[in-house]
């Protein structure tokens, strides 16, 4: 099921804020159609890592990035059209961001930005993405309502629908369940399991068990270092190279 083709290849990636290192010397490969889990305590550099993948670091001017990230054969630090890159990489942030537009416009925003104007095409995209995010049935009768008026869990699924609206090849999820109840979390997890047939997913999570449920492979970050990467089941079955990993997995710290 998991392809062996490398979708994303990171080599010696270091990130620092105003000279303070947040991540040092990370190298890893993410394969096509896998869910790649990243776990680690707060401050381990997980979010910084995600932000560099679609060049969001440009938005923070005190952030410096070294090393190379190759996405689908392109060195992302050298590409000229950042906007096109971001359209191929969807992001879901920790707190749901329902833009203050209608539900329909939230999902249709990105396709419109990239130039799709036909109503029928937009309708089709909106319905497909909302269905894939398991939100369609709840909102199909009120697509013109404000997205920001939905409940937190619905907004998070709206965010996922929006992230899917440009058919990204890579989906980055940053602790998506932080503001969502357990039932909704489970629904979104089911959605993700289906999505990985089409999309490569990187899942940053604080919930060790969530990584276990979803991720094919898991990387453990600690204090800005990549401690180890392994097959998720193997890691949880105690096949770890580093004592700190098993300590974290078993809840002895972090």
């Amino acid at each position, binding site marked *: 099921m998991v392809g062996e083709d490398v979708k994303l290849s990171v080599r010696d990636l270091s990130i620092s804020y105003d000279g303070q290192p947040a991540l040092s010397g990370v190298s890893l490969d993410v394969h096509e159609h896998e869910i790649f889990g990243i776990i680690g305590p707060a401050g381990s550099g997980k979010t910084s890592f995600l932000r560099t993948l679609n060049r*969001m670091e440009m938005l923070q001017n005190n952030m410096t990035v070294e090393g190379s990230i190759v996405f689908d054969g392109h060195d992302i630090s050298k590409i000229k059209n950042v906007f096109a890159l*971001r359209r191929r990489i969807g992001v879901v942030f920790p707190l749901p961001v329902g833009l203050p537009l209608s539900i329909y416009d939230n999902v249709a*925003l990105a396709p419109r930005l990239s130039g799709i104007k036909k109503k029928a095409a937009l309708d089709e995209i909106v319905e497909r993405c909302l269905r894939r995010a398991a939100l369609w049935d709840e909102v199909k009768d009120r697509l013109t309502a404000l997205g920001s008026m939905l409940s937190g869990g619905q907004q998070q699924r709206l965010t996922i629908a929006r992230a899917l609206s440009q058919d990204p090849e890579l989906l980055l999820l940053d602790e998506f369940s932080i503001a969502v109840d357990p039932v909704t979390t489970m629904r979104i997890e089911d959605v993700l399991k289906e999505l990985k047939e089409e999309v490569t997913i990187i899942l940053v999570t604080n919930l060790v068990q969530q990584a276990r449920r979803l991720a094919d492979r898991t990387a453990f970050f600690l204090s800005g270092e990549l401690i180890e990467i392994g097959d998720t089941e193997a890691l949880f079955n105690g096949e770890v190279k580093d004592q700190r990993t098993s300590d974290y997995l078993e809840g002895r710290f972090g």
Partner: protein
Amino acid sequence: MLTEKVKPSASMNLDHRGRDWYTDKAIALLVFVSGISAIIFIIGIFVFITKEGFGFIAGPLNVREFFGSPAWRPTSLRDPTYGVLALIAGTASVTGLAMVVSVPFSLGAAIFIGEFATGRLRETLKVLVELLAAIPSVVWGFIGLSIMNPLIIDLFDVPVGLGVLNSGIVLGLMAAPIMTTIAEDALKAVPDGYREAAEAMGATKWQVIFKVVLPTAKNGLVAAVLLGVGRGFGETMAVLMASGHSVNIPTSPFDSVRALTATIAAELGETAIGSEHYRALFTLGILLFVVTFIINLTADLVVRGVKKK
């Protein structure tokens, strides 16, 4: 505020109200009075100008002449007429031109300061804009008289440079800093998460601003414009100095006009208290009061967001 003099046993007396209790009540009363004083003042002002203007409204006022005639001749010995049409046209034309000048200018400035400028440039600009807002209106009037006037005469080859164009530009420049400040506040109130979310989808900076930031800040921006209109409408000194102050319905931007406010400022000191002219000026005051009240109320309602359900 438990001082050392208060013994624990005294403060434990449950049937005794100590000094703290009275201090608390006194301060609460003081704050309450300050709070409602705004209401008292506004009602007081309204009652005062209505009382002074009432004699005119109830007596010699001819509604059709008042709103329909451009002839404001209160000092005519034979046949004084009180038509405010020209004055309204004067105020409206000057305010209108001022908005044409200041809205694009201040929205642009707000977008630059709020979305593009960073660090020291941004802070410097904000301080400068606030400084601009503090320039007294008589200084703007002076600029209109002594700089804009010869400039307009030279540029357009007209005999007089005081008029709609001059006062509209001066008023526009005057209203721009306030509009910029309020508009920038409205942009700042848009959560950064919205910008990030849009950027993460591959939106360019302009797309983020036009599709996400401006629609979100819409209410605040409309309020900024309305407050600018209110400012232009109520401004007196700069308009008095730069408009030429002759009663006229303008047909070209170079025509001299007279504003409602300027009329009151220029004439009130020379009327006999209680005379018809005096009361007519107060009626102008009521008109101004009502219009500015409506503008400000609308701005306020818009800020609070008459929200779409």
